[in-house]
């Protein structure tokens, strides 16, 4: 009986919602400065503003708790360009989440500043283009999926005209099953919550996305959905900032990776092996026996750096991906029976553990 009453009331409220939607002009706010950058779905018209080269500039950011005793962030310097995907990697408690919260304006830094497109993080212009997926999404359990997205659609300040269609599109993109869309959020599994979180980000049509550990505890399908969404954003020119523990995931989507350790960014590394960047190539061979001498000869005649690892494997340091064909040709000419030549994918992990031991030792 109570449920019927509540449902009736809800239906009545929905009707009121539609009424409000048609009268949206009445309560329009006056103080929005920048128009948003719609850049997610390629079928929408893309209105881009001339891009400032450095979208986010973090200078000497520090965040102390308990009057200086706990240093969550200590002099962080980072510059993030527009349109790039950057990953933040670090052990637990390094300050990744704190940094992300400072960038979102949820925390106030003790010193230093953050500028996003020239504005402070707590500016409406910034909020209009921002989307955020928290680590443990705590969405309103009483809402259904559709209603939740409708809520965020309204919150992001967009006109209500196409709200329902856009909600459906976002739900389709994250592949949330039809049966779940009208169920209450408190019945969702973790994977579904994460997808709903992604949908909530998509609804706002952001050009600056923050994701905090988006793939932790997810099944492979959901992980793929997350990755595809990030790549889509990247293709549309949005900036994505990612916190993660999963190095392989990070490497697959990110352009750059920043290592955070004890509140300080040690190293920012490009994953793409851009021109001029050192690329490590692992070579494994079957024969001949004096392969080591031949490899040393190759290294001395070219500009390759060489590190002999085992009897049948070595690591060449090239100055860029463009030198890879030269290496392979050199190996063939030297009649090395190549078994495998591949980029050292464990590169990131090595860097990670190296920086760990450096600080521990």
């Amino acid at each position, binding site marked *: 009986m109570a449920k019927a009453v509540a449902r009736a009331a809800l239906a009545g409220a929905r009707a009121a919602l539609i009424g409000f939607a048609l009268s949206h002009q009445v309560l329009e706010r006056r103080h929005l400065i920048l128009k948003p950058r719609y850049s997610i779905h390629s079928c929408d018209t893309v209105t881009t503003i001339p891009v400032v080269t450095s979208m986010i500039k973090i200078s000497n950011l520090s965040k102390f708790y308990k009057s200086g005793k706990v240093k969550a962030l200590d002099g962080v310097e980072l510059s993030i360009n527009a349109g790039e995907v950057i990953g933040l990697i670090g052990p637990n408690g390094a300050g990744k989440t704190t940094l992300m919260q400072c960038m979102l*304006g949820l925390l106030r830094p003790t010193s230093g500043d953050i500028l996003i497109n020239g504005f402070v993080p*707590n*500016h*409406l212009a910034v909020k209009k283009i921002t989307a955020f997926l928290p680590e443990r999404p705590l969405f309103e359990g009483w809402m259904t999926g559709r209603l939740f997205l409708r809520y965020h659609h309204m919150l992001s300040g967009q006109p209500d005209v196409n709200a329902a269609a856009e909600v459906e599109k976002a739900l389709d993109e994250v592949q949330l099953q039809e049966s779940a869309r009208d169920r209450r959020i408190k019945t969702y599994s973790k994977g579904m919550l994460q997808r709903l979180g992604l949908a909530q980000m998509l609804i706002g049509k952001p050009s600056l996305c923050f994701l905090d550990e988006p793939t932790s505890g997810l099944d492979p399908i959901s992980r793929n959905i997350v990755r595809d969404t990030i790549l889509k954003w990247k293709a549309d020119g949005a900036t994505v900032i990612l916190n993660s523990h999963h190095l392989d995931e990070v490497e697959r989507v990110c352009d750059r990776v920043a290592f955070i350790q004890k509140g300080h960014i040690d190293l920012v590394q490009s994953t793409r092996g851009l021109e001029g960047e050192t690329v490590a190539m692992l070579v494994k061979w079957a024969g001949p026996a004096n392969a080591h001498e031949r490899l040393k000869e190759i290294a001395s005649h070219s500009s390759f750096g060489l590190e002999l690892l085992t009897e049948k494997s070595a690591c060449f340091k090239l100055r860029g991906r463009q030198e890879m064909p030269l290496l392979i040709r050199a190996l063939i000419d030297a009649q090395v029976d190549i078994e495998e030549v591949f980029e050292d994918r464990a590169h990131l992990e090595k860097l990670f553990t190296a920086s760990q031991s450096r600080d521990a030792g």
Partner: protein
Amino acid sequence: MLKTDPGLTTEIPIWLIASTVILLVIRVGLFLYEHEHPPMPSEEIHWQEFVDEKPPNASQKLILYYFTARWSGAVKKLESNAFSNKQVVKLINDNFRPVRIVDVSVEEHANDPQIQKLEDKYGLSALKVFPKIIVTLPDGGEVQRCIGAKNPALIKKFLEDTIKTEDYVRAKKAFKDENWKKAAEFYNVFLEKNGLKAERSTYSVLREYISLKLAGQNQAAEELLKADLEGVDSLRWPYPVLAYLCQAIDEKELLKRAGDSQDKRTELHAYVGTAYYLVGNLTKAEEHLKQSTSDVHFKEWPEFQLASSILKRMHGDPEASGAAK
């Protein structure tokens, strides 16, 4: 600290800041102004000079004593709220004789002897709170009291209630003074004004009946009982006594209805004893009346006094008033 940049999410709208400040300034200004020029208190109520109870041929209006003190903040609240309320003022002016008494026992450690006498009479010096309002009958005898500063609606209710129960209180006083005829008259007036279903109506009917009987007007008493028995609320306590008096139930049933309640038993023994006395069954009368007066806890009650006076009469006390009064 107070950001008003319209783009920030943490901005505070200028109109909000401005209006808060302006209102605060006006408020402080008004407060200081009122402090400098305090308004005349209660000038609409026609306060009279201090009167002691006058003999009965003076005004029959109830007297409203208002005890106040200069230092009391609650008094100021009462005066600015309740005594500035048009309806309260009208009620007081029309139906009471208001008397304002200023108690200086805190500042000067002793009151005027007349004031002190008045306070002691109504047991007010033990009650160390202000303000106090006491409504009394013109010839003495408390009707009701109201302690503390209440909001206008409650004061209004208090006054209206007092006006309603005026006749009841007068009747009760007459009853206690064994002035049976007058008591019956007053109870009659009370019943006419308030009807049979009001809170004290059942008691009124009962006591009017007894008064008429003791005054010797048996026929009027029986007529009254017959007429009012159906109209009275049959769930209220003294109804079983009425039922007994017109022989609808017997004594055992009456005792059962009273249950274990000592109050109810005291009352019913007094009335049953009186009934026996009126029909001439003196032994039974004495038995019941003695039971009624056994517990001196109820000495102030009309029933207790009724029982004692009948007992006195039965033992031939020369001071006891005759039945024909």
